[in-house]
């Protein structure tokens, strides 16, 4: 690392706070200005749970799958909210950023680019809620969602579960996005990752109706903890010791950032993608 490279590892907390305030306001302004775009994305997030409610309610007609039609509706409604709140698209965007050169101005700033992306991501989720919440209410009413297990206590337990899930998924997928520095086409990789969320995270179906091997595998991987766990906490299906185990699993380094980051470092590749791009810029 040359001495001219700024040190991204230790920005002053005060400067960072100021940066967050400004960047978040700018990102919020952007999302409000392009609210039509946000609305279209939100419509996209509604589609999958909507279709899956129909599929699973059809399956549960006249047979016992362990869940009633109302419980399926509640599950997928909460799944929509959790998926929206944990959603991150940067793994699709990095390829474009690198190819088009849009990354360069972000890297020239004396702040790690992840802070810019966090602001962008949070502001989108915030603005998107304006569409997601009414959609969730409508979905619950139309499909007769059954929230009998949920209570104030489960809602309070849901808050930290959701926040940890947001952080977990953001960190993992942001690390995954860094793959675009080495690979020119990352769409296949991203698609595979989405499939993991679909099955191991429980977006396609409650893990309880999935095959045994998927359920077992899901405990060791981060997908369950970023989607399925918060859903079940909100519905009041996870309480007591299991709740605390889940909270513990969510930030565990093994299942999150640590794995990806150390993997990248172990191969003798530059410690951070930022430095690598700086090397490219200075060449």
């Amino acid at each position, binding site marked *: 690392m040359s001495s001219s490279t700024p040190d991204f590892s230790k920005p002053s907390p005060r400067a960072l706070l100021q940066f967050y305030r400004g960047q978040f306001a700018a990102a919020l302004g952007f999302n409000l200005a392009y609210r039509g*775009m946000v609305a279209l994305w939100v419509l996209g997030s509604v*589609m999958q749970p909507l279709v899956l409610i129909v599929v699973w309610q*059809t*399956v549960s007609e006249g*047979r016992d799958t362990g869940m009633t039609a109302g419980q399926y509706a509640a599950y997928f409604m909460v799944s929509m909210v959790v998926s929206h709140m944990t959603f991150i698209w940067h793994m699709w965007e990095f390829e474009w950023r690198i190819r088009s050169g849009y990354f360069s101005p972000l890297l020239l700033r004396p702040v790690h680019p992840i802070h810019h992306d966090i602001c962008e991501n949070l502001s989108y989720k915030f603005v998107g809620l304006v569409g997601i919440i009414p959609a969730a209410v409508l979905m619950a009413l139309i499909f007769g969602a059954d929230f009998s297990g949920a209570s104030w206590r489960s809602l309070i337990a849901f808050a930290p579960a959701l926040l940890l899930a947001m952080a977990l998924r953001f960190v993992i997928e942001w690390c995954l996005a860094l793959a675009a520095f080495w690979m020119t086409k990352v769409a*296949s990789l991203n*698609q595979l990752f989405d499939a993991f969320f*679909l099955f191991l995270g429980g977006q396609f*179906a409650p893990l309880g109706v999935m095959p045994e091997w998927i359920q077992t595998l899901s405990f060791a991987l981060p997908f369950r903890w970023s989607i399925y766990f918060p859903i079940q906490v909100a519905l009041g299906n996870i309480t007591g010791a299991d709740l605390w185990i889940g909270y513990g699993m969510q930030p565990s380094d093994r299942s999150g950032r640590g794995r990806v980051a150390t993997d990248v470092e172990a191969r003798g590749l530059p410690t951070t993608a930022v430095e690598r791009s700086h090397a490219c810029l200075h060449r």
Partner: protein
Amino acid sequence: MPSPLKIAPTFASAYRTGPIPRRFFLGVVNAAVQFATQMLAITIVFNQTESLGGWSREDLIVLVGVHAIVSGILGMIFSPSISSFLESIRLGTFDFLLTKPVDAQLLASVQSVAPQSTVDGGGSGHYWLWSGTAGAGFGLVVLMFILLLLAGLCMVYSFMLVLASMAFWFVKLDNIMNIFNVMFGNAGTWPITIFPAWLRGMLTFIIPIAFAVTIPAQALTGALTVGNVALTFALAAVFLTASRFFWRFAIRQYTGASA
């Protein structure tokens, strides 16, 4: 009528975005992930039940295969062309397309080709192998299937064209195709018959997913009714005509890059 030779050079665009063998390889990887995802989804559902609204496991595999063929064709010609078209409106390069001695709608619809998408369509051959109904009948059934598939494609194409024509008013519309893909990718892989009436109506007449996938699939699974066939062909004609009129109306809004 423009001669096919005049459009042929536009197919040269196939070489624009990189070496073809590598893109085919990535196409194969994509198709494999897609295939595994859909087979796993069907397996999970049919672990719980023997019939999904009257559709057996084999029927559903046929349906998913039809979906793959339709997305392959859309992804090969129409999606890349419409994307180029949307971009050219924003950049003003649509002017050049208008000066060519071929109908602008035709050119806009086939100007870019992504050959790697043929893998999606070709890969769907797997579905027939997996499916128990493969080889159940040839001749008339297959002919009917192809005709219905073409009619369905006409409708989906018309719908995409109308959506894209909105760009004459709104200019920046890249996301709208995304929405179509999300709708088609999610709702299209399940039989339209399981949806509640209000949603079925939407997916039939507003976003014509039913006709593009479910009805051609029914031709192969033997669940077709005469009424549905007639309706499909009639609606295909209506959609094509309507989208043509809409295009001609919309293009008048184009002010050009130099105006």
